[in-house]
């Protein structure tokens, strides 16, 4: 039971970081990035290969595993996680130069799908890079002797807290306001002298850096990663979490991750299996996810925790507004 709870908690931390990055892009800035899972995978591969390079290189090679074209690039924890986030952001900065050019959200969405398909095909077939469709295995988990550990969970919680601080800090700042304006009326934002491309590109880089970080967190716990773990449909998982929780709301995104990423996905596993239908349980996960997504978009598009309501303008004394205070200073009648 203890190991199961630790497992769920680590999965939640990784999924929450993943979802917060999407909320910044999609919920707050209106960026339709359907290739989002690619950056998660990139972070997982980088962290996984770096971890293998630092500890289990010989063991991995003995099983025929190939990665990084035979280069031995070993990085200890947490440097490998940091490297994953940096490389994820760097890749996003290059990809974003093209994807974020267009003012039309549907063009960016289509290009992100195309990016995913190209990346999936290359990584799956270029075996010396990340061992092709077999993927990486025998990845060591930090602070663990093989079982789920409280030590690694604590590290994941710390990373999640840092990401929450970053997400909330951006959301509640003038940057967050600009992001919401770009989401709602990019043409107006342009007319006020603010570059829509620069705003979207910046958010794209930060958000996908978070995706890569989440991938690194996950792979070091899962100890293995292959293309089957980042199939295109996995994108629905994180979008559902953001939509159910409340797109544009960081608190809603965390709640949505708990309910969808942990609740729905894990809850289905408790259903009694039917031996006559061996793939029933995995299929049911997608059926339930799909139905939940459709239901929320149709009946509760703002999610469980809608984007924050407007903050009241400060009044320093009852009945006396900031304007009255200024006029008082200027000698005018309040």
């Amino acid at each position, binding site marked *: 039971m203890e190991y199961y709870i630790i497992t769920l908690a680590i999965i939640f931390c990784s999924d929450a970081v993943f979802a917060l990055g999407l909320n910044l892009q999609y919920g707050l800035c209106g960026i339709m990035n359907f290739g989002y899972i690619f950056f998660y995978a990139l972070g997982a591969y980088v962290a996984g290969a770096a971890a293998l390079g630092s500890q289990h290189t010989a063991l991995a090679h003995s099983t025929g595993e190939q990665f990084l074209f035979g280069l031995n690039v070993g990085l200890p924890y947490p440097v490998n996680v940091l490297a994953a986030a940096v490389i994820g952001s760097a890749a996003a900065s290059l990809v974003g130069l093209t994807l974020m050019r267009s003012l039309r959200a549907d063009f960016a969405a289509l290009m992100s799908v195309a990016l995913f398909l190209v990346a999936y095909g290359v990584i799956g077939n270029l075996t010396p890079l990340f061992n092709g469709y077999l993927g990486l295995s025998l990845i060591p988990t930090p602070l663990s002797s093989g079982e789920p550990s409280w030590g690694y969970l604590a590290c994941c919680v710390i990373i999640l807290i840092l990401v929450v601080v970053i997400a909330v800090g951006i959301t509640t700042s003038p940057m967050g306001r600009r992001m919401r304006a770009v989401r709602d009326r990019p043409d107006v934002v342009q007319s006020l002298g*603010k570059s829509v491309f620069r705003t979207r590109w910046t958010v794209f880089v930060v958000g996908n850096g978070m995706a890569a970080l989440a991938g690194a967190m996950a792979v070091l716990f899962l100890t293995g990663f292959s293309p089957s773990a980042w199939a295109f449909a996995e994108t629905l998982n994180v979008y559902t979490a953001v939509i159910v929780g409340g797109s544009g709301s960081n608190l809603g995104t965390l709640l949505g991750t708990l309910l969808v990423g942990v609740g729905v996905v894990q809850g289905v596993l408790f259903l009694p299996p039917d031996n006559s239908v061996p793939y029933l349980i995995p299929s049911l996960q997608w059926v339930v996810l799909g139905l939940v997504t459709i239901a929320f978009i149709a009946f509760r598009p703002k999610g469980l925790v809608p984007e924050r309501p*407007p903050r009241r303008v400060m009044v320093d004394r009852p009945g006396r507004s900031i304007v009255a205070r200024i006029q008082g200073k200027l000698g005018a009648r309040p």
Partner: protein
Amino acid sequence: MNDRAARSKARQTGAELAGALEVAGVSRQYGGVVAVSNCSMRFGDGLITGIVGPNGAGKSTLLRLISGDVAPNQGQIFWRGRDITKWPVHERAAAGMVRTFQLGSEIPGLTVLENLLLACQGNPGESPIGALFRRGAWTAFEREATERALILLETIGLRKYASSFAGSLSGGEKRLLEVARAMTAQPSLLLLDEPMVGVSFVMRETLIAMFSQLRDQGVTCVIVEHALDVIEKLCDVVVVMAEGGVIFEGTMADMRSHQGVRDAYLG
């Protein structure tokens, strides 16, 4: 309009036609439809220029060419001596060229106050690094900007809606907000596309007073309008467009007696 006519106009109006904004031979087509045809004009610095004409004359298209929303098929646009023809919209706006929109342009997901704060230039909190690591700087900036914005909202009677979402305002209130936001952006050139649409008589007078105040502060204004009474009260120079070209430039009084203008409006 050629240079001789521009200098003549300068003597006539007593104003300095410094040519802060100039369009030279601009044309714009949409498929087979010519919206603007070989249009050349100079807009007087610190003056309010009104552009009128029948529907389909190319007025709004000319404004969009100047603001950069559409690119000309031919010709050039100059602003303070620089060729801005290929400048993107946000660079023109950052250089002081601010426009309003024919249809509503409030940002519905932001409050009224936030709509104004968005227009402030140079906010240190509008980047992730600034947002996270320069909190003190942008907090002070926002405090000052909020005080100025609230005073402006008080002036135009929208103070009580400061915390309301902009999408909840009436049509006329949205128009007032849009103009207030344009003013907050500290423009040196203001492009106004039918600002009086959907505005009550009282609000109209408020807007006229605001534009006049801007002109007195040295802001160059170009206003596209159908309401000739507004043009007469507000504008130093009147330009009439028809079928994509300029057919008259001068005072309101001269416009009324111009045969070409009569033909354009009455057919």
